[in-house]
């Protein structure tokens, strides 16, 4: 218990040191550019300004919190739909060599495509830019989950399969009691990578789509509004939220990893 507290204390010290280093470099850049890039203190002022009434939701002005939530909602829907397809499909690919041989080339061709390339296609299909962003998130969050799930499902040890065979497990029992639990850590790895990609892509997507969202905030209020401070604030918020999402999935992954 004590050792754990000391370890936690040290990691806090390292974290603070890292942050100070970042702020130091940031301040130096600010001085070199003669304030073109606002200093940390100036940015803190902008941050406080941006954070006043963050959940304001008027038709003519949306607070930063509202924008963040709308970005998160789009990521959530696209990512959720993508995972809902990627996980079962991963099971199929992992269990059937034939399915793998047929689907794998398709995955290999589509996977390296930049997610942004899917945006105009989504726009053409849905005639609606928020839906097009969701479509883009959906596509890009398919691949890591699909690949990791199918890898997990294809590497189920013969010992576990034998149990199902020897005791006559039904297909449903095999999926829920052997395949899913064995594959779960792999699935969470895939989901974690997917949510990371999705979060990166949403900002770019919202710059294209406009409307509300963090990406639009960066572009419209930051760049077009001539406030580099707002750009910096948005970058920090995007980074912090991305970190939190990653931590969330890491802890889920740990939670479902079993001792052998």
């Amino acid at each position: 218990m004590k050792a754990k507290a000391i370890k936690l204390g040290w990691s806090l010290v390292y974290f603070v040191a890292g942050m100070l280093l970042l702020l130091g470099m940031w301040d130096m850049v600010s001085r070199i550019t003669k304030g073109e890039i606002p200093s940390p203190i100036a940015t803190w002022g902008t941050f406080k300004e941006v954070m006043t009434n963050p959940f304001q939701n008027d038709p003519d002005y949306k607070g930063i919190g509202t924008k963040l939530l709308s970005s998160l909602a789009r990521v959530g829907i696209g990512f959720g739909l993508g995972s809902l397809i990627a996980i079962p499909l991963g099971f199929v690919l992992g269990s059937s060599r034939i399915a793998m041989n047929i689907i794998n080339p398709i995955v290999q061709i589509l996977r390296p495509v930049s997610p942004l390339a899917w945006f105009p296609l989504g726009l053409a299909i849905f005639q609606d830019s928020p839906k097009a962003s969701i479509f883009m998130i959906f596509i890009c969050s398919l691949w890591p989950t699909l690949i990791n799930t199918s890898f997990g499902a294809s590497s189920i040890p013969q010992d576990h399969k034998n149990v199902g065979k020897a005791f006559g497990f039904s297909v449903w029992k095999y999926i829920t009691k052997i395949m899913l639990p064995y594959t779960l850590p792999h699935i969470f790895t895939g989901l974690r990578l997917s949510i990371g990609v999705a979060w990166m892509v949403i900002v770019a997507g919202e710059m294209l789509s406009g409307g509300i969202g963090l990406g639009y905030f960066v572009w419209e209020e930051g760049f077009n509004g001539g406030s580099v401070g707002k750009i910096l604030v948005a970058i920090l918020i995007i980074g912090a939220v991305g970190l939190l999402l990653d931590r969330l999935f890491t802890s889920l992954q740990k939670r479902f990893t079993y001792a052998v």
Partner: protein
Amino acid sequence: MNSATTKTVTQNIADSILEPVLTPSTAIAVNNVTVSFKTLKGTYTAVKEISLTVQKGEIISLIGHSGCGKSTLMGTISGMVKPTTGEVIANGKKVEGPGPDRGIVFQNYSLLPWLTVYRNIYEAVDSALKNLSKCEKKELVEQTLKTVHLWDHKDKLPGHLSGGMKQRVAIARAFAINPTILLLDEPFGALDALTKSNMHVELLKLWNLDNREKTIVMVTHDIEEAIFLSDRVVVMNNGPEATIKEIVPVPLERPRNKKDIVHDPVYMETHDKLLNLLIDKFSIDDIKE
């Protein structure tokens, strides 16, 4: 020769042919079984034209060097391995795949690591004994766990158990579905000598509890284990194309006592015989000039 005698003679011949299959006391009949696998280098025949009959309530061991096909032969009885030619009859029915009449204990426990001891057994019971009600299944699992003294550990995951306990769970799982035939594939190979001895006694206890009605086939490479447990020891030749070298009966009275049995002349004789069958040379040849 009148027609009546002819009929009896024909009947007798028919009986003698059908006997190994039809006699109620026959639990397992392996008939002329060959198992070949296709590999990259061609066809590999693991066991060739093996025939073996096991009586109901009998304990037999399959013994031989590593890779002699004893596990493969066992697999044809359990239904996990399909014979290339020949057939296996278990409880009067041709083996087409695994079934609840044959309980299997695997070499490396094969417990599902994400399920508790209780769930590991429950899921097997739930699948194998479909006509029981949920209540009856739960009762059966509880009773089985108590019999093998694992009730206190029912909520543990296999990862938190010792090797001996894991194997007890695996054996309990096989016993829980109440099979008439129990198939054990090198069940105690990974255990230390002391734990192994205890497990032998526990296995026989379970067998006794059931009035010695279960037929047990066990794969092993341990001579002492084979003698202590079995009625007959089947010694196999080295593969590929392994066959049965000899079947050695173990005429020792039951119940057998682990400590006393080793001094029994019959034990020593059987032990020597098995050792001779398994090991060709006892000494290293002198180096000749």
